[in-house]
């Protein structure tokens, strides 16, 4: 490995490391990014369910994988220093009812894990699986997300 390549690799590690630090120090941006991805994936899946896009098992799997990641990360993305700023719509109740909030994140993880393989099977199976996932999203948003302004 020559010096330029080594330098590039070192630079790459620095950038990656900085990215990780930003993710940790900016939980609001991180969770907003995850939620945006959740919804983008939801749109892809809903279009398949409605026959507006062809059924694609790989895209369904990718959606479930991303939702699983969200469920796993959610409880750690609401530290005490992230109650306000960046137009967050996180409800104050998250920090007063944290145990229930975490339980709802766990419920999402479970419903995603339980339905991932089924949903990949066919568009009918996808249609059958998605409402349970959507209900889990809504159950949490109802209590812990404020309305848009």
């Amino acid at each position, binding site marked *: 490995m020559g010096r330029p390549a080594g330098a590039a690799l070192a630079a790459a590690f620095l950038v990656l490391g900085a990215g990780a630090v930003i993710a940790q120090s900016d939980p609001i941006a991180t969770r907003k990014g995850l*939620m*945006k991805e959740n*919804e*983008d994936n*939801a*749109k892809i899946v*809903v279009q398949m369910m409605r026959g507006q896009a062809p059924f694609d098992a790989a895209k369904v799997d990718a959606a479930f994988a991303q939702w699983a990641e969200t469920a796993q990360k959610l409880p750690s993305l609401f530290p005490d220093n992230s109650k306000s700023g960046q137009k967050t*719509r996180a*409800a*104050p*109740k998250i920090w007063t009812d944290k145990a229930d909030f975490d339980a709802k994140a766990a419920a999402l993880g479970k419903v995603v894990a339980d339905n991932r393989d089924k949903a990949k099977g066919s568009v009918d199976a996808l249609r059958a699986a998605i409402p349970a996932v*959507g209900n889990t*999203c*809504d159950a949490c*948003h*109802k209590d*812990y*997300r*404020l*309305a*848009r*302004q």
Partner: protein
Amino acid sequence: MKKIVIALVLLAALALALAAGWVLSAPVMPQIVLAPYSPDLANGRTMFLIGGCSSCHAVPKQDDATRLGGGLALPTAFGTFHVPNISSDAKDGIGRWSETQFIAAMRYGISPSGEHLYPAFPYTSYHAMRTEDLRDLFAYLKTLPAVSGAVPDHDLIFPFSIRRTVGLWKLLFLDDAQFKPDPAQSAQWNRGAYLVNGPGHCAECHSPRNLLGAVIAGRRFTGGQSPTGQGGVPDITQDKLHDWKVDDYVEVLDSGMTPDSDRIGGPMVEVVANTRQLSDADREAIAVYLKSLRGK
């Protein structure tokens, strides 16, 4: 001597004002005469969904939207309202109510015992509902499970704790006209206008209120405060939603997804849980009407 006369005059004026207030605030049981009718339960369910009955009256912290045992606490500037039991239970719910009593409550905010109901119950919107729709809704509610258990009384601050104050409030703010279609608009628009302003009571949350808690007529749909006490409710006029197409409104009422890859939150989640069960035609009618809402 002069002071005594002034005092007497003031006392007399006060007594007169109190007497006038007492007379004016008296609940008047409306005369409702109903012809024989066979209710349409499917339409009753539609009214139940668009009316959002379960959003407030379903027993909290359980998933069955048809268990209308009440008990939800609504914190407001006037104190805390405890949502009553409207299940078909004969003792604690509305199982013994007559059809006319139900219509009196929905349209005029008067209970079967002849008391004023507080306008946290949105009869300010429900009054616009067609008699047939109210009868269908009543028949549908009777088919839902009886849930026993009374809820606590409202815990309100003086003077709102006196129900007669609602009588004066109604003189100021209750419009008792039923919905009148606008002949210049399409049937679809009128259906949407009816669903939104009557049973849907959308403006009750999506509008600012005055100091006495009444929706400010000139600012309907320009945004308000959440009934949960946490956060606000957005402006849904074209001031805010000018980029939305009719299909975008249909989408949000069906899946909760907004055009910018966002998702509704807070109490609107429960609204969408209901609107997604409406017919496509009704969602489209609502969307067409909402798209026509001008801003300030």
